[in-house]
Every structure is written in C-alpha cells, then in structure tokens.
C-alpha cells in the first residue's frame, strides 16, 4: 500500500503516520485503514470503550438564507422547516427516478444574520449538511445548481471532522471539558465559532461527530488521547462496525440505481413529506411506494465462518440468480460473517433457501434482521 500521489492527504495525516497507521485509498483520500492494534481489536475496543475516527474526508456544507429550508425541502425528501433547532435528520439527495444520489445528515442550526452567519435573524435559517466523501464534489454541484433558484448560500466548510464512538465516548468528552455531552442522539449544535458537534455516528454505538478547524483539532486530539480509554480506529473497523449496525455505505448498499423503498429506508421519509411531495424524485417515489418493489435490502447471515463479500451473487436451490450481496465481511462482535444485500421479493416472501457461491462451494445464507448488534444510541 504505497502512497498514491493522486490521493488527497488528511489535514492530520502526520498524526496518523506517527500513530503507526497503514494507509489505503478511499474516495480519493489517503486514509488510515488500520493502526497497530489491528482491525479486530480496533472494532472490539470501540464497542467496549471508545474509538477516535478521522472522518475529515467527509464534507460539511453550511446552508444559510431565507429560503434555506425551502431549498433543502426541494433537494431532499424532508420538511426542513419542521426540524427543531438542533435537530438532525438522516435524509437523501434523490434523482428524478428516486435513485439515491447520496445519503446525508441535515441539522437545523438556527437563524442567520444578514450576512448569512450566526447572529441575528434577518438572514433566515442556517443548516448543516454532512455528505459522503465520494459524493462531495457532485453534492456541491447539485446543491449549487438547485440553490440558484433560492435565496440561499451554500458554503463547503474546510474542517477536520472527528468521530468519537463507543459507550465511554460521552464520559471521555466530559472529562476533557467539552460541552455538548448532554445532547440526545441525532441532535447537533455549534459549541464554538467554526465548530459543529452532533450526537451521531456510523457504528451503532453512542457517540459524537465534531467538525472543527485543523489547528484546534490537533489540540482536541491530544487532549482526548490522553484518556487511555480512547484509541485511533481505522477505516477497516469503521466498515465492520457500520455493517454490524446495519448502516448503508453509499456506492455499495445504496446507489443511484437503488431507491429508498427497495433499500428499506422509507423510515427516513415522513409520511406527510411523502404525501405532500415537492422534492426531487417525489413522483417516482410515490409510484414505487404504490407499486411495491421487486427486490429489497436485507441483512444476510452466511452459514459457517467464511465471509461472503460484496458483489457475490445470490442464487436459489436451482442456481437461478435471486440477489446480490452489496457489503459483507466478518463481524468481530457478532462472531460470525455478516452481510447485506438485495434479494428478490419473491424469494423473501416465499422464504426460499438462498445460497452464495464461493469458489465452487455453495454456502447457505439466511435473511437476518438488521442490525446484527443492537444499537446503543443515547436517546436522551
């Protein structure tokens, strides 16, 4: 895994090198994949204590203006004006066919002054949008294109973005003197100028995500890592943690070729929003909700110990193709292979035996409820 010079380096790259990370390319970034602890221990450490993740490859956008809510309610299947100040919501950018361009977390920050920044309320509302690294450029172009019809400013924020995840996360932040540990799950705020902090994450554990300027991030990292309960965790364990938690990875489990209905994500779209429409993809989504889908995203548990990876074709007893694994690996906390993917409704409804063909072996695969490990969010 040499350094590819076309990859972007994280602002805290030197800290990861000093911590002994092994790097690999992901979504155009040279990312820490594992640290000397190794993926298995990193995963378990996060579930037992707490892990520190550098997710600065993700992109924060700030939207402000009198029509910021209207823009978001058009760009996403979301009633942005109905969010309480500080409330976060998982949502999407859809295309006209209701295909998922990206999945996002939108947080209502508060009011904006005339210049679009915090303070005063003459400039309307302010929202934070957190988007995936691989889609950041496309998301920005998409937002700016839509924003041309609205009184709304779109700003891509240069930030270090850190996730602190695990049952000890809140206590570690409290001990380090940070405010915000009283937040409930899926709430966020701005503790200081240039900072954004939310109680959220991608592991199924309680935890926080903090966006902040690089200089202050170095101080924060040093302060947090002084607590021996916290360890750097790489992208490999982030993937096994989110997979056990049943959370989708855009580009794999959800893509523009998947809609929220077959992706089993309609819980993220409130019924009033579905009925009212008005967002991009509303008509297509309504049609899909009415017609039902031919395939559905499900959790998958292979028999035995051999992981069934993404892109593995699923077949029925006669060898007919009935689905595709979109993410798969070994679940260190589950103690067995875990996967998710799309299976034909007929096979799900008929409870038909499902198999994965791996190197000539036919491995039985069972539909398994998601998540594989229970979520432990702090609901407040």
């Amino acid at each position: 895994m040499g350094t590819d010079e076309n990859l972007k380096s994280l602002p805290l790259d030197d800290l990861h090198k000093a911590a002994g990370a092994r790097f690999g390319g992901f979504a155009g970034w040279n990312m820490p994949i594992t640290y000397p602890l190794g993926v298995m221990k990193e995963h378990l450490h996060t579930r037992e204590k707490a892990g520190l993740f550098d997710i600065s490859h993700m992109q924060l956008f700030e939207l402000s203006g009198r029509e910021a809510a209207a823009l978001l309610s058009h760009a996403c299947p979301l009633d942005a004006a109905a969010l309480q100040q500080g409330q976060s919501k998982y949502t999407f950018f859809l295309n006209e066919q209701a295909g998922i361009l990206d999945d996002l977390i939108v947080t209502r920050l508060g009011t904006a002054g005339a210049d679009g920044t915090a303070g005063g309320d003459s400039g309307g509302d302010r929202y934070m949008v957190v988007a995936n690294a691989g889609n950041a450029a496309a998301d920005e172009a998409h937002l700016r294109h839509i924003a041309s019809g609205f009184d709304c400013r779109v700003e891509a924020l240069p930030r270090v973005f850190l996730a602190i995840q695990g049952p000890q996360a809140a206590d570690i932040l409290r001990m380090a003197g940070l405010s915000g540990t009283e937040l409930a799950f899926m709430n966020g705020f701005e503790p200081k100028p240039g900072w954004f902090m939310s109680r959220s994450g991608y592991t199924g554990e309680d935890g926080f995500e903090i966006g902040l300027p690089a200089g202050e991030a170095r101080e924060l990292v040093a302060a947090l890592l002084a607590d021996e309960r916290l360890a750097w965790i790489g992208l490999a364990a982030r993937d096994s943690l989110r997979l056990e938690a049943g959370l989708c990875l855009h580009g794999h489990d959800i893509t523009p070729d998947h809609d929220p209905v077959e992706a089993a994500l309609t819980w993220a779209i409130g019924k009033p929003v579905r009925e009212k429409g008005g967002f991009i993809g509303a008509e297509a989504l309504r049609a899909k909700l009415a017609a039902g889908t031919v395939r559905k995203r499900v959790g998958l548990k292979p028999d035995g110990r051999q992981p069934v990876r993404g892109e593995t074709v699923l077949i029925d007893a006669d060898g007919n193709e009935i689905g595709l694994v979109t993410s798969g690996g070994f679940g260190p906390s589950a103690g067995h292979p875990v996967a998710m993917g799309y299976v034909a409704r007929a096979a799900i409804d008929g409870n038909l035996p499902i198999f994965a063909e791996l190197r000539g072996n036919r491995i039985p695969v069972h539909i398994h409820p998601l998540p594989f490990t229970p979520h432990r969010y702090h609901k407040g």
Partner: protein
Amino acid sequence: MATTYFTEDHEWIRVEGGVATVGITDHAQDQLGDLVFVQLPDVGQKLAKGDAAVVVESVKAASDVYAPIDGEVTEVNEATASDPALVNSAASSDGWLWKMKLADESQLANLLDEAGYKAIIG
C-alpha cells in the same frame, strides 16, 4: 536436517525426509491482518505447483495460498481452521497449514532461501 525455503507469494516450506510443511510468512500474516477463516485442502489431494491450496480470509479480504511445488497432501493443520488467529500469532510455527509429500524434489531448487526472501520484502 530440515531446510526452509520461501516463495515470492510469501509462503515458507520446511522440507524434511521428502515431506514439506507449508505455511505463510509472518510478513504475509501481518499484511493480511486478523484472519477469520482458513479453508484447508483435503488429505490425499494432489496439488500442482501454483494450485490454490488454501483460502485465508481476513476481516477485509480473501487470499489464496498456492502450492509452491507438486505433491500430495498428507496432513492438514485443523487447528488453524478452528482458530484462524493462530496463523497471525504463530505463522512460522504452530500456524502451519498443510504437509505434502514431494513429487519432484528438484523443484525445490527454484525456491528462495531466507536471505532471498528477505531481500524481496525489504
């Protein structure tokens, strides 16, 4: 007297009395990371040099371990199948994978010695 050889595919081969014990190197297990699955060949299986003999899977990826020489499998290390982490903790000793009866000892001449292998991994 046992002689140990290596391959460019990061296997070690310890030969004693016409029988080779095969495993992956410590460097290989380190690169793969935590192993979660080992699929061993069948005893009696005839392997040709280059055949995929063993599948090892880490949390993130699957890899083949190739037969370094021709021969017949005489024994497999079931302990690695029940506890794949054994390959991580003892790659060059208790984490051996299989033993094979050599079909053609002259093939050994094409393998690397320890110095040659160390030169490859740097």
